[in-house]
């Protein structure tokens, strides 16, 4: 079986790991995912107005 010929094994290892480490992860990581749109809750959240000065 020609796959068992050990001559190109090192170059195949190096090249495939190069592609696996430097080509694919940037493409995968560039996908960004939006949050699901959530329905607005019935009660509005209580908030305190800002009443302390800038230091």
């Amino acid at each position: 079986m020609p796959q068992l010929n050990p001559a190109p094994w090192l170059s195949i290892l190096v090249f495939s790991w190069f592609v696996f480490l430097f080509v694919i992860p940037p493409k995968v990581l560039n996908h960004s995912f939006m949050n699901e749109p959530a329905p607005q809750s019935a009660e509005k959240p209580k908030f305190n107005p800002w009443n302390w000065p800038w230091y």
Partner: protein
Amino acid sequence: MMLNFFDQFMSPVLLGIPLIALALLLPWILFPNPAARWINNRLITLQGWSISQTTHQLFTPLNQGGHKWATLLISLMIFLISLNLLGLLPYTFTPTTQLSLNMAFAVPLWLATVIVGLRNQPTIALGHLLPEGTPLPLIPVLIIIETISLFIRPLALGVRLTANLTAGHLLIQLIATAVFVLLPLMPTVAILTASVLFLLTLLEVAVAMIQAYVFILLLSLYLQENV
């Protein structure tokens, strides 16, 4: 010189350039980089959806420590699925039929899961070598058996993928040759064989995707034990 069906697996070289380099570099053209937009085109949306679904499926059973492996395993998933599926097109070379490539991924990644386990939780990692509830006299034998099965894992991982894809490609070539030879002699039989070829190709599409997935799934299981 006998017709040798294994010649399709020789790492092809054209004018001194190893074509496996092209086979490894070109598939990523099919995965465009998403732009910094909220809504992308259909292709990118579909790819992003499948990536997020796969990530969710694979990493729900894993604890937080295992989630660090997400980028690595999903990249590997994309790598294997694209190479497997593109190899089913005529006249393409499938790098994943090369044992060297599959072992190049199986051995380091398996070893990494083992080392992570032994470093962070050595007792639990070693405890996996003895299943619960083993009768006392069986313990030494079982530890030996479990150690052997632990060391066979990378070999099995690599060889499983290689063998499945090699066998699939060989079968396709054999049956296609049969159809081609039978066509002038017995056209009816040739048409029946062609329908077998069609079904086989559908099977190979499924096998391509499943085998890539199994590779990643098993790695995530080995990770689950160790993290």
